[in-house]
């Protein structure tokens, strides 16, 4: 039996004047399968929509074609009308007879309008419904890491009612955070006692991930703790593994009492029994790596503290100060006001050590001449690197990293905290150099994203928007390789053959796999070859 197609024409409040609607109506009514044609002047308004619904119901229309304005403009309204009339929203095709027809031509364009409608009808005939289904999801969350970002993430997740496992590689939580706390002036102990007393948070220390599988809502992660290894199920995974720093020093130099890291300097500043106070301190940053926001902040904070506590002479050597973070410019001014000297150099200064002093030779661009500074202490340039194990964990979870090795691709279409794989998120230093308030912003955005996914225990998603024909699939793995969301995997079907299967929840309906499949085994509903070809053939015929 022929599919019943209903055509709804709209003359846009009679604003489309170069189309003869009476003639169009007559002509498109002849198309096989078209059971009714309606003309309206305000299809997108309440009255028009109501008429459309009652017509669909009365005539038992199965597929709908709307010939009106650009789908950019009102398509969502018409899809809703279909749903309201009890039809699947995907059984809808549109012919843009306003922006792409009436408005771009002078003179009568009835002929073109009729052709556009014919194309839409021929496509509509082949459309298939896409149903929605509720998928159950696991409400447990795994947070990897035990630092500032991880602890805050677990606490906030608990606040919205989600149970969390905190997995830390070290023997205790927050070993690095304690130093951070004293540096930035917040109370780490209350945060620690809160996380330890929270019944929604399970803490696993000296533990690590050894294997991971599954998709959003249903991840299976193998965790090794001590000698034991066990599998756990989670609905989402949050990575908060932080970063590490490495001193960027010439090969003949090494860190000692005169050449220190920012962290070492912090400890010296906190030590009330320090024997000798350094009288001259040199700082260096922004020569080997452009990503020096955190070294800039650390230098400014430490330089100020050293000025106050030791009243040292301080010289800062850098290429550019990275002040594009909250409060950085203010700190920079403060430091200058209290006498810290900033020397900007295009080339990396030469450093030599000997006789308990460090010599820094640089060409300062402002003075335009060579400068030599002999200092008691050099706070060396630090490189920010992904923490150990970042690479291993990213390959276990099959997620991409950026060109510096940190988590998250440089794709602007991703939320800053989201991975390309649904259900896996990043917070804090493991995705780039972020100051603490940005880390907290990350934490909050991850918490709400995870809450939306898991709080109700199930997710409503479209089923089989992308379909694989197991007969045609030759398991060439092309789709698995190109899928940016890791939503396709091989499964064994009856007869022992392996074929690709799309996991609906993880699929983002981008259509790349359908376009790439060499065997044409994958189809993307709404854009199947038949549907596109049916439109092309319509033009050929005329």
């Amino acid at each position, binding site marked *: 039996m022929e599919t019943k197609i209903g055509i709804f024409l709209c003359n*846009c*409040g*009679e*604003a*489309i004047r170069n189309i003869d609607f009476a003639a169009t109506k007559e002509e498109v009514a002849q198309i096989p399968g078209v059971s009714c044609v309606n003309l309206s*002047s*305000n299809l*997108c*308004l309440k009255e028009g929509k109501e008429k459309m619904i009652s017509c669909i119901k009365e005539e038992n229309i199965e597929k709908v074609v709307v010939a009106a*304005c650009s789908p950019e*403009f009102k398509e969502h309204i018409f899809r809703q009308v279909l749903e309201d009339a009890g039809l699947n929203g995907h059984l809808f095709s549109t012919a843009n007879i306003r922006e792409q027809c009436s408005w771009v031509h002078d003179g009568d364009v009835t002929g073109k309008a009729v052709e556009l409608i014919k194309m839409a009808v021929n496509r509509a005939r082949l459309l298939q419904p896409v149903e929605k289904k509720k998928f159950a999801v696991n409400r447990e969350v795994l947070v990897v890491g035990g630092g500032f970002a991880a602890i805050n993430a677990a606490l*906030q997740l608990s*606040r*919205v*009612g989600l149970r969390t496992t905190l997995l830390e590689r070290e023997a205790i939580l927050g070993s690095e955070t304690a130093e951070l706390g004293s540096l*930035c002036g917040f109370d780490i102990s209350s945060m620690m006692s809160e996380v330890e007393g929270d019944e929604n948070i399970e803490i696993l220390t000296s533990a690590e991930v050894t294997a991971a599988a599954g998709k959003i809502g249903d991840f299976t992660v193998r965790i090794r703790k001590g000698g034991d290894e066990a599998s756990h199920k989670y609905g989402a995974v949050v990575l908060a593994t932080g970063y590490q720093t490495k001193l960027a020093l010439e090969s003949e130099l090494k860190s000692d009492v005169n050449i220190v890291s920012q962290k070492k300097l912090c400890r010296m500043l906190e030590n009330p029994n320090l024997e000798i106070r350094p009288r001259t301190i040199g700082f260096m940053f922004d020569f080997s*790596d*452009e*990503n020096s*926001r955190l070294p800039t902040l650390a230098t400014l904070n430490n330089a100020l503290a050293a000025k106050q506590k030791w009243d040292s002479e301080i010289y800062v050597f850098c*290429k*550019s*100060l*990275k*002040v*594009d*973070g*909250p*409060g*950085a*410019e*203010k700190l920079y*001014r403060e430091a200058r006001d209290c006498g810290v000297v900033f020397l*900007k150099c295009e080339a990396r200064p030469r450093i030599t050590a000997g006789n308990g002093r460090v010599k820094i030779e640089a060409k300062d*661009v402002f003075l*335009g001449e060579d400068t030599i500074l002999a200092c008691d202490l050099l706070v060396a340039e630090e490189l920010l690197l992904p923490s150990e194990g970042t690479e291993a964990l990213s390959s276990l979870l099959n997620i991409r990293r950026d*060109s510096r090795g940190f988590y*998250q691709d*440089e794709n*602007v*279409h991703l*939320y*800053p*905290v989201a991975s390309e794989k649904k259900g896996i998120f990043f917070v804090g230093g493991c995705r*780039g*150099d972020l100051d*603490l*308030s*940005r880390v*907290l*912003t*990350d*934490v*909050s*955005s991850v*918490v*709400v*994203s995870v*809450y*939306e996914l898991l709080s109700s225990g199930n997710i409503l998603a479209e089923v089989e928007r992308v379909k694989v024909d197991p007969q045609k699939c030759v398991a060439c793995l092309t789709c698995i390789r190109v899928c940016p969301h890791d939503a396709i995997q091989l499964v064994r079907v009856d007869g022992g053959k392996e074929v690709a299967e799309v996991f609906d929840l993880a699929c983002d309906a981008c259509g790349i796999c359908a376009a790439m499949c060499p065997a044409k085994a994958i189809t993307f509903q709404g854009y199947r070859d038949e549907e596109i070809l049916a439109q092309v053939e319509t033009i050929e015929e005329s």
Partner: protein
Amino acid sequence: MESKNVLVVGSGISGVASALELANAGVNVYLIEKEAVVGGHSASFCCKATDVCSRCSACVVPDKIREAVINPRIRLLTNSTIKKLSGDLGNFRVEITQQPRYIDVEKCIACGLCTEVCPADPKAVYPPTVEATPFCYILDEALCLRFKGEKCDICRENCPTRAIEFELKPKEQELSVGALIVATGFDVFDAKEKGSLGYGRYPNVLTGLDLEQIFGREGYLRLSINGKEPRNIAFIQCVGSRDEDHGYCSQVCCKYAMKLAGLIKYQSLDTKVTIFYIDLQTAGKGFAQFYEEYKESIRFVRGVPVEILQTASGDLEVRFEDISQGKVCRDTFDLVVLSVGITPGKNSWGLARILGINLADDGFFDTKDSLSSNETNVDGIFLAGTCQGPKDIPDSVAHGIAAASKTIQALGGVASQRRGNHRGH
């Protein structure tokens, strides 16, 4: 449930991000916007891709706005401002004033008949910009003959959907909401304040925003005075940032200037581009590589010029201090682009007074403490985006989502307390 409504003030990218996130979490949102169209500044930025994406994030904005406008949980009120606020976390009452726009958004089908028949010159009723959302025609009171006392109602008579209505007064309404998110954004620094740079006097001095809009509209760059392609362009950084009045870095100018410069170089390789700067802010995901790629083909000069003069031929003479030679130099350009920064919104002060929230020294809204960037001194009022301090598009989105998260957590706390009390009774 009253506490389940949230008011988002401002519909730029961070307000939209907040609203969408709340709506997706099942919260009903009123999204109010003082202008007639949604999107704020972010909607007017152009794509800066060459043959590869330059990751400027401008393309993320229209999709988000569209998604927000069609979301059934988000009620959009354009031309609206807050008049008064009372109550506290969980039950705020907000009085809103909505200025009439004379054309009903629900009824306007953008057919264009009104513009066609309007007798005023220039036309008093016209379409919004191409990318505007909602795409509803705009009736300009200042131009309309009817508002000048004449008895004209030709557009109303001709409107097929009867969307035009003249006899409208500002509409007052009171909303009950559990919490508010302030996302009122920023103002672009007015380059005229730096008189010596000649913006507004010399036609070939443009701002970065002007350039964004020219590329957005035309796709290429021509000089307004002779229609020719500029051959020698200077970008001046930190105009309205890091100076006596603005003690902060605007965080976006180095990025947009270098990306626009990259686009100019891509379109015409022999156009010379010079960037005058104080410190280059080249940190950030993917941006360091971008800098590496362009640092040979763009001339970078340390130090920001203080004066621009126009020569007899219409070119621009830029006076700057050449640090390497230690003297004042002159260089001639046919186009100078001022990389204007982010300044606090002019209406922030008024809004801060109505809502009872604090302003920081630099004029942006102040936060409760230095670490939390979303919370204000009032429980239940949160900040999102550049109204709290300069941010680029991805940071604004993240900040908007974080504000939504804080709101949900605060309202969740209220709800569980109420449930607790209920059990207690």
